[in-house]
């Protein structure tokens, strides 16, 4: 793979064309949630961001990087915990802004017809009945829904429904159009179709919208549509890179510059995280506890079976492959594949280097073993590499009755994760621990328990 940063991009920082007044300007915006303890969960660390007229800006990132939170802060739906968002230079909370959102779940009102759904925002603006009907019908015509006015959303296919979503968003002629993973609930062909129609509307200036802000986890989608791409990292969310895409439309997915760009973004996304320590918070004077002493790895939400499957596939491919190609072969979204890769990496079964994954010696042994041996290897790898599993096991061994309530670990995890995430972490730990027969979990009493004979590799009783 060649250097992706050749003539397709103009570097990463000097992004804003001089002389363009931004529509939305975010200054050092942060989002965090206060916790009962001294700590707080930082979702997004202080970030600057501009939305300028004339461009489609795509925000890419793995799940948990706060993409949607960012969209909601920029659109005025959610107030930043710190920092300020400006709309044409005035604080957004004091401005009469004109934006629309296209939602991932469409968020159509199922009890209203297609026409009523599109009319609703105009009704909110007090437009007279005749005028709003006429405008809505015109908009429905534009998005190709002529003749569906009287249908209810549930009678339509997913693609049709999202067209209604677009019509509703565009009928108010927003200055900025926000889109929150608008195509991810659709099948591949429908999504492709809608994307090109959107591009057409945009490039022909059929819609008066001045800027589009697109949140997505689909790298190709971003490269296909955007004039500028921002990649977010997680824990907490922050900007990893911000660059312009200067390919001309229509973009060819198979062209060399296109694939190089996609490859570059994959590398950014899979590059090992170097998480900096949280700095003392000057606004409240509180010092976060030293994170090093209690730093749990974030367990990726993957199943052990998925890890085994991935490793076996890798062996078939000669032990080494490009993640991009792997995802393609599996017909996986990168969001679905990354947790499995992360898990395998965490367990030491494979290594990731610049977008390529390579299986390790233990990984090879694991993939080639039969099930009982796999469990043993998994157990060893888990105890060696994963703090939470090690702690649960040790706690169970030390306690006389060999049981520990879930809450005990939830409390510790809560120091570091949001309470939802803590629950998910425990859930993943349970799934891994059960597989490795490290411990069992009594779901009725919400307690971890030590299986009676852990040396014997028999199916654990009461696992279901």
């Amino acid at each position: 793979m060649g250097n992706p940063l050749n003539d397709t991009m103009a570097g990463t920082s000097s992004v804003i064309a001089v002389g363009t007044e931004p529509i939305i300007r975010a200054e050092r915006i942060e989002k965090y949630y206060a916790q009962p303890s001294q700590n707080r969960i930082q979702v997004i660390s202080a970030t600057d961001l501009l939305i300028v007229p004339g461009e489609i800006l795509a925000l890419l990132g793995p799940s948990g990087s706060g993409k949607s939170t960012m969209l909601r802060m920029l659109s005025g739906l959610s107030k930043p915990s710190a920092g300020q968002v400006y709309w044409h230079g005035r604080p957004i909370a004091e401005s009469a802004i004109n934006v629309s959102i296209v939602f991932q779940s469409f968020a159509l009102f199922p009890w209203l017809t297609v026409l009523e759904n599109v009319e609703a925002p105009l009704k909110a603006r007090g437009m007279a009945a005749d005028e709003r009907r006429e405008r809505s019908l015109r908009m429905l015509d534009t998005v190709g829904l002529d003749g569906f006015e009287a249908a209810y959303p549930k009678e339509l296919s997913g693609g049709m429904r999202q067209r209604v979503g677009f019509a509703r968003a565009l009928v108010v002629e927003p200055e900025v159009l926000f889109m929150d993973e608008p195509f991810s609930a659709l099948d591949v062909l429908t999504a492709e179709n809608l994307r090109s129609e959107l591009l057409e509307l945009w490039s022909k200036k059929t819609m008066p919208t001045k800027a589009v802000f697109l949140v997505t986890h689909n790298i190709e989608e971003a490269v296909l549509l955007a004039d500028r791409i921002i990649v977010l990292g997680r824990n907490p969310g922050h900007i990893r890179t911000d660059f312009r895409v200067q390919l001309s439309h229509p973009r060819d997915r198979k062209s060399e510059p296109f694939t190089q760009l996609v490859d570059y973004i994959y590398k950014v996304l899979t590059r090992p995280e170097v998480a900096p320590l949280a700095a003392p918070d000057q606004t409240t004077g509180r010092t976060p506890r030293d994170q090093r002493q209690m730093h749990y790895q974030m367990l990726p939400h993957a199943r052990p079976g998925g890890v085994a499957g991935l490793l076996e596939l890798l062996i078939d491919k000669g032990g080494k492959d490009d993640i991009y190609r792997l995802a393609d072969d599996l017909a996986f979204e990168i969001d679905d594949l990354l947790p499995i890769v992360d898990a395998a990496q965490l367990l030491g079964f494979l290594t990731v280097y610049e977008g390529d994954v390579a299986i390790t010696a233990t990984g090879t042994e694991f993939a080639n073993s039969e099930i009982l041996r796999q469990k043993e290897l998994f157990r060893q790898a888990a105890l060696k590499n994963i703090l939470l599993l090690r702690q649960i096991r040790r706690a169970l061994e030390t306690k006389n009755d060999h049981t520990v309530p879930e809450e005990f670990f939830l409390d510790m995890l809560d120091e570091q994760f949001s309470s939802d995430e803590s629950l998910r972490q425990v859930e993943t730990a349970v799934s891994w621990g059960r597989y490795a027969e490290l411990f069992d979990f009594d779901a009725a009493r919400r307690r971890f328990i030590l299986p009676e004979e852990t040396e014997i590799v028999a199916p654990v009783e009461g696992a279901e």
Partner: protein
Amino acid sequence: MKRTFRPLASTLVMRSTWPVFIDAGVAALGLAIFFTIVHMSTYWMQAPVPMVPISHSMRALPTYAAYSVVRIGIAYILSLIFAVSYGYLAAYNPRVEAWMIAALDILQSIPVLSFLPPVVLAMVALIPGHQLGIELGVILLIFTGQVWNLAFSFYTSLKTIPREMQEAARVFRYSAWQRFWQLEMPFATIGLVWNSIVSVAGGWFALIACEMFTMGDRNFQLPGLGSYLQTAASSGDLRALLAGLGTVILIVVATDQLVWRPLIAWSDKFKFEQVESDDRIVSPILELIRRSPLLQSLPHRIWSRVEEPLYRRFAASHRKAPLQAIDEDGGDARASLRLWALAVAVFAAVSWGAWQGLMLLRGISWSEMGMLLEGAAATFLRVNASLLISALWTIPVGVAIGFNPRLARLVQPLAQIMASIPATAFFPILLIGLVKLGGGLGIGSVALMLLGTQWYILFNVIAGAMSIPSDLREAASLYRFTRWQRWTTLILPGIFPYLITGMVTASGGAWNASVFAEYSHLGNQTLSTIGLGAQIDMATDQGRFPMLLLATILISLMVVSMNRLVWRRLYHLAESRFKLEG
């Protein structure tokens, strides 16, 4: 159809928990309210009420039926308005939310009928010398019986509106008015309809009891179906009694067919689903309305006349307003100061009232205390005996019906209607039978509870048996499970969530019935048995307010703790372990 009583059952055993001080606060509030009611009702002696002679001629029946229906109607409309306001307030005011929900939890588990005597007395005192006092008292009671599950249903609906829908309403600048009619109300409709059915059934139960209400030699009867039945029974007019009963059943069936079924079918369009489901309820009445062009377009035209100017007005006022962030706390400092002042005032009033209420209790002797405890134990046993008997016969029968789909489709709506027929209407017949056969009211009250409760359980057991997937049943026969094995590993776990749902609902009904069933007049005879319900009635009869208070506290305490300690746990167990997904 199979989820009918779910919403009610889940309100009875709420998921959320809150600190004890909120419970204590709510209990204090209850005490204070009770004290106020009792305090007012002590003036009752000076306020004689003109008695209305109740006829038991058949010709009076239509008029009486109309009176009863109007009472239910007024109480229901009031409940709906109150429930929507309450739910709205609770859902959008985090400061008072926990309090309001805790209050709901306790209020809806208190048997309303235990408040019948003092409330009627208090209302008579408020409007002396007029039947209107009793009338208001009765409506107030039906209202109290109907309102809580409606309020909780509306509150839950508001809380479960998907986030993106809320955001869409924000971003597209909906006014509160538009949000209410296009988002909140449609979203809550299905829950409100189902809960209304349960509420109105409960309303009939209470209404008939209230209309029959007599105390000692004082008569508080109102012209209505309840008093008609009572008078017919007292004068031994069996024909009139049966005619009255028939009228009650007719009204219930008619309501089911003419109101509820069309409403359920109509509310189908508010289902929050991505694809259209095949299993839909049809209503010929609704089809008829839908086919009439006039009935279709007229309401719409009138409505838009009202609506359009309103939208223009709202839009003009907030066109230039900024968008309010969804996680922003709208309250400003001055408002919160006023709120604090109000809170302090309420706190003072409540503590004073609660203290006064507690002082009342000093007048109770140890022997009276013992009597009350004995009564509590008797009522407790009776309620649980009725539940046990219901479960014992409905489980085998329900499972047999449920495993036979054709039979189930026939029986299920029937059981649903049976559950809606107020058991209290059967009470006079039961009494006559008891007097003739010489049985005591002890057994009679259990029989009355059974009349009301067993249908809920049957209904749910059928639904549970139907929900057991046929491949599981096939597996059971393939592996030649013994009968015992079949029941313990397949059937009982399979119907468990439904059984609990039915039992929770039935238990509430049984407690309510107990108050009414343990003490009664028939002609010149007074029938009574040991029990809290009887003690509540007797205490009112003799003006022994401390006893009345303590008995009410005891009954509320028992119901609330049963709900918390037994039903809630079983319900959670059912939800977590025995739920068949899909």
